[in-house]
């Protein structure tokens, strides 16, 4: 099997494909569907990458609205229920003089999800409409989205710790609200959206210009 590859040219120009599972490359005509090394599915670009990314992005755009409007936690204190949204939680942190913590929670639960959705949408649009944005900047933004993606789950972990600690029935308890579930959906769909996007499409869009 001749699989000579020239550095400096794209794999797609040379009829080569890279396996995303084992990291080996092979010739497309020899093995159109499976990787000859690890026998997993293979393609020159991730199949339907843009469609999947859009579907997941739109889902997260829908769910980010209830995640921010509805209460994310309920505090039950002396039989009275106090609901808390993401934003009111941050405000109460600021009021109790914990600016640092308020900033962490704000970045993780409000700034990061919105930035992730916006950045992925811009990258996907520029690939689709050949906007000719700088590919290095797009890739930098994508890398940032990928790196920061997991940090938006922070608020959910905090809720789980609060629920475990405040467990005194009607006297003092914390319950997760509707927004907690919506927020989970936002986090998960944006993580999958970043995962299903094929970064090589950014460069493909440039050369086809």
């Amino acid at each position, binding site marked *: 099997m001749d699989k000579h590859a020239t550095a400096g040219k794209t794999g797609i120009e040379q009829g080569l494909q890279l396996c995303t599972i084992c990291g080996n490359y092979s010739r497309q005509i020899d093995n159109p569907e499976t990787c000859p090394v*690890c*026998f997993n599915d293979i393609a020159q670009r991730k199949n339907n990458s843009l469609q999947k990314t859009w579907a997941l992005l739109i889902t997260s755009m829908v769910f980010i609205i209830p995640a921010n409007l509805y209460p994310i936690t309920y505090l039950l204190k002396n039989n009275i229920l106090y609901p808390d949204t993401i934003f009111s939680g941050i405000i109460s942190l600021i009021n109790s003089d914990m600016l640092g913590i308020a900033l962490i929670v704000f970045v993780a639960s409000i700034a990061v999800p919105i930035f992730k959705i916006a950045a992925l949408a811009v990258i996907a649009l520029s690939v689709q409409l050949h906007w000719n944005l700088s590919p290095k900047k797009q890739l930098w933004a994508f890398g940032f989205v990928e790196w920061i993606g997991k*940090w938006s789950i922070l608020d959910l972990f*905090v809720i*789980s710790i*609060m*629920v*475990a*600690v405040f467990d005194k029935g009607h006297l003092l308890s914390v319950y997760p609200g509707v927004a*907690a579930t919506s927020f989970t959906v936002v986090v998960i769909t944006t993580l999958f959206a970043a995962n299903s996007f094929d970064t090589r499409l950014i460069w493909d869009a440039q050369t086809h210009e």
Partner: protein
Amino acid sequence: MVSKVPKLKAGYAAKCIRCGRVIAKNSLCDPSGILALCIAALILLIPAFYFPLISIHLLGITEGANLLQGALMMTSNAPIVSFVVLFCAVIAPTLLILTITFSSACLTFNYHPPYLPKILKITRILIHWSMLEVYMVSLMVAIFKLMTYADLYLGAGFYFFGALLMLNMTILSNYNNHDYWERYIHG
């Protein structure tokens, strides 16, 4: 873009000629070293999840909370949240360390079972979902939030968890999925 990867010295990494991302690295640890780290991590895993991370003195009672409790208590109210928390903080890290232990052991002892490729494939996916470091920061945030309500004490689990986090980061920075595939194919 096709890049030619030169022979790398231990601890060095090669970057893509087009975008500058790391495409290959030569880690300082071979599978036997990673196996040792993984076994240490597996031992720490149990006390880290089982012992209370923090204890709180509230309404006259001192009570500890461990990592599993919070997630399990939400199952009735918010099953999706509970599952995601449980998966990212407990299941994925545990499975990840188990799969890396298993594949390192196989490669160290030259044992090549037919399901090793599946294990390597699962490991690659799990890396994205193991979020121990995020949990650590969440714990810090929770501690600061709780300090206004009650007296807090760090439990034994907290120290085990800290050590587990260090080991986990060492393992992941030295683990190289592609290198394991190469060793599996050529070994």
